C-alpha cells in the first residue's frame, strides 16, 4: 500500500463521514447513492447504541 492509496482512503472516509463534499476520483459509485447513505447512517446509529453510554462502573453483568 503506497502513500497515494492511503490519501485516497482518507479522502473516501472524509466523504463518507461528511467532511468532504465530493468522493475522490475512482471511488465506487455506490458511495454517493442515497441508499448507501441511509445504510451508513443506520450503521452509525447501531454503533452508537452498542458502544456509547456505558459507565466505568459497569459491575454486574448477568443480564
Amino acid at each position: 500500500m503506497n502513500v497515494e492509496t492511503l490519501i485516497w482512503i482518507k479522502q473516501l472516509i472524509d466523504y463518507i463521514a461528511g467532511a468532504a463534499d465530493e468522493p475522490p476520483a475512482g471511488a465506487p459509485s455506490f458511495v454517493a447513492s442515497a441508499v448507501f447513505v441511509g445504510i451508513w447512517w443506520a450503521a452509525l446509529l447501531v454503533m452508537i447504541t452498542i458502544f456509547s453510554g456505558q459507565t466505568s462502573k459497569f459491575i454486574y453483568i448477568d443480564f
Partner: protein
Amino acid sequence: MIVSLSVATALFVAFNICVAWMARNSVPRQLLRQIDRTRGVTDIAIGNSLMFSGFDADAYDQELAADHVVAMNAGLGASSVVEHLEILSRALERDDSIRVAIYGFFDFQLTDPPVTTVSDLFGNRAMSYYAALAIALQFYELPLRDRIAVRVLSHVPVWVDRSMLWAKVEKLRRAMGQVGMPAVETNQFGRASDFTLLEASSPEEFEKECRLAIDGRRGLSRPIVQLIADARAHGARVVIVEMPLPPKHQQEFYSLPAWQEYRKYVADRVRDSGADYVQASDWITNPSEFSDPLHMTAAGATEFSRRLATTIHPR
C-alpha cells in the same frame, strides 16, 4: 435525503426488532414468566443479587417438608426496591397462596430514597419499562424530564434492552483486557473484586450514612412501605431479612456502634409497619462460603436457607 432517511429508519426499526428478539429471554423476563406460570407458592423470597444467589428454595422446602411449604426465589440481581415491589405485586396478583414474603436487604437499602434517572434503568432494572410501568412512575423519584423520557422510551427496545448489547461488549472488553494478564476471580455476576465498589468507601463514610438516616429521621423508603402493605393486604406475613455478609464486611462496617443504632432504628420502623425483622447478617461466618465481597456460594446459600426456614417457621 428522503430516501436516505427512509433507509436509515427502516434499518433502525429492523435493529429494534432484533434487539427485542435477543432480549426475549433476558433474566427479568424469565423471572416474570416463572412468576406467571407458578402456582401454589407459599413463601416467596424477594431482593437483589444477595437474595438471588443466597436463597436456596429447595433447602428451605426440605427443612420444612412436614409443613407443606413451597418456596420460590424471586430475587433479581442488580435491581432496586421499586423492581422488588413490582415483582411482589405481580406474584401476589397471580398466586393467592402466598403466605410469607421474605425480603432480603443489605446496608441502607431499606431507607435510601428511590432516587433515579432514566439512564439508571438499564440491565435488570429495565424491567420497570415492561413489568409495571405505573408502579415505576409512582415510586421512582424521577425528574419530570426523565418521567417523560421513561414513558416514551418504554416503546423503544434498543433503549429498554441496551444492556443486552452493552453486556456483550463489556464481556469482550474484559476478555481482551485479560490477554496476557493473570486470571482474575469471577463468578456469575462479574469480576469478584468489583463488588467492593458497592460497599462504603470507608467505615467513616458508612458511619456518616448511618447518622444521616437516624438524625434525619428517615423512614422506610416508600416502595418498602408499599411492599409490606401489599403483602399484608393479601394476608401474607412479611419478613425483612438483613442478609448474610462476609466477616470482613461485619468487622469493617456492621461492628460500628452507628450501625447497631441504625439497625435498631430500622428494625423498629419495620415492626411498626407490621413486618418481622430477622438479623441474619452474621449467620455465615466462614469466608469460604462467600464468592465475592457480597454474595454467598451455593453452600452458604443452603446453610442460610435452612436456618431461615426454621426461624420463620419455628417448630
